[in-house]
């Protein structure tokens, strides 16, 4: 066992951590918000949304 063998294990562990973060956040987000809201993005609507939020203050 040398440094590179330990780095192999560290890379496996870090990969699993990044994957876990993504999957947990994905499940949490999908359960917390409605599907209509999550898929509410419309092409060309961003300017309108910015204007709306600006007026609301």
């Amino acid at each position, binding site marked *: 066992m040398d440094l590179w063998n330990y780095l192999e294990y560290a890379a496996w562990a870090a990969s699993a951590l990044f994957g876990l973060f*993504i999957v947990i956040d994905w499940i949490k987000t999908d359960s*917390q918000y409605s599907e209509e809201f999550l898929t509410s993005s419309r092409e060309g*609507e961003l300017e309108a949304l910015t204007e709306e939020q600006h007026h609301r203050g």
Partner: protein
Amino acid sequence: MAQEQQTEHVGLARVLGPAHVWALGVGIVLVGEYMGWNFAVGKGGAYAALIACWFAGILYSCVAMIDSEVTSTVAAAGGQYTQAKHIVGPLMAFNVGLYLVFAYTMLEAANAITVGFLVDTVATMSGHSGVLDQRPFIILAIMFLAWLNYRGVLATLTFNLVITAIAFSAVIILFLATSGIFTTSPLQHAELMSGPASLPYGWLGILAAMHFGLWYYLGIEGTTQAAEEVRSPARSLPFGTLAGVMTLAIAATLTWYVCSGLMPWEYLGQAGVPLFDAARLSGSTFLMVLLGIGTLFATLASANGCINDASRAWFAMGRDRYLPGWFGAVHPRYRTPYRAIIFLVPIALIFALGAPIDQVITFSILSGLLGYTFMPLNIILFRRKWPLDSIKRGYEHPFHPVPAFVLLALCGTTFFAVFLGYGTQLVAMIAFYIVVSLWFHFWRYRFVNRGAQFTMPWPKPRGY
């Protein structure tokens, strides 16, 4: 559901500037200067690679000019997919969307394979005995960059800006250190490129070199994918894209100059990491370490930009129901197309762990080339349907239709060059796109949001 009550819509965040656009475009491509371009030397010698580099430079200047004009008016995620949707039609848009996703996902897989190879090389050089398992490093590269993309576009492309700038600076420093400006130059162009070594396979070698000549610039058109996330699309996209092509033309020429002056064409044409080899041949430990870091950063920047671009194209197709609408979701907190990012991770992993790198790269190049062939048609129809006086453009490209015809001619030449080396793959891939086109036409098109997909406030096209 508290946030939902305050905001009815969630969309991508407009947070990027021209430097991020530059970092996205150059970041995807710069790895081609560190490796891959030199196979053009193997096809026709050093002069052939230089001619291919400049011909490809003309091709990509046309791509950048055409893209800049159209995208400065179509400020939406999806890039060329969205352009095709508005200008040509649904079937073209579906195909272009797939070209983009495959070109970028395959390139991401090839970059991850390269990260594994680089780590293995460093391990061997540092005295590691035994065989290093490259898989955890390949997977880590993909998972880390996917996580970064998931968390937000500003951090993702700021990271790209930093590592791309370091990788580009490394090329400049290598050139300055070896050119003879400060010390005696080790370059030997006259000895290495005279006699039969000048053009070993004649003019046919130049034609064959065009296949890998694309590698100097492949992916710069990805800047358009940021259209929905830049603060000022009409200004940032043309500026970032055109500055990117200029940066790459400089980096490509300097790379060719240094490498062809240090290595004979027979070796250079097969080298795995030519810029790193050039730094080693210079005899400087500092340059060797710098170019080693540059190679790793260029590879990561490319994979990072590819995840960004492939996910935007997939997301845009989902949002218009060209694909299931589930993919059109935006993360309410990070404002990223998170489901598209997640979906493409296992695909990239399968190709990175299970496919040979030359096949993965060829699939990426061919998908990109099909996309470039669409662009001349796109700009000709755009100018015909919406002449200059009908829509205000952020950028108007000069000499129309000359760039469109030059691009078409160069695409035809490159298809022939690819056919010489990878004819079977070319035919197989065209067959694949024909099959999925039939599926789209006879089945999927019924689900498309036909009215809602055209959102640009353009006048009716001329003649309709």
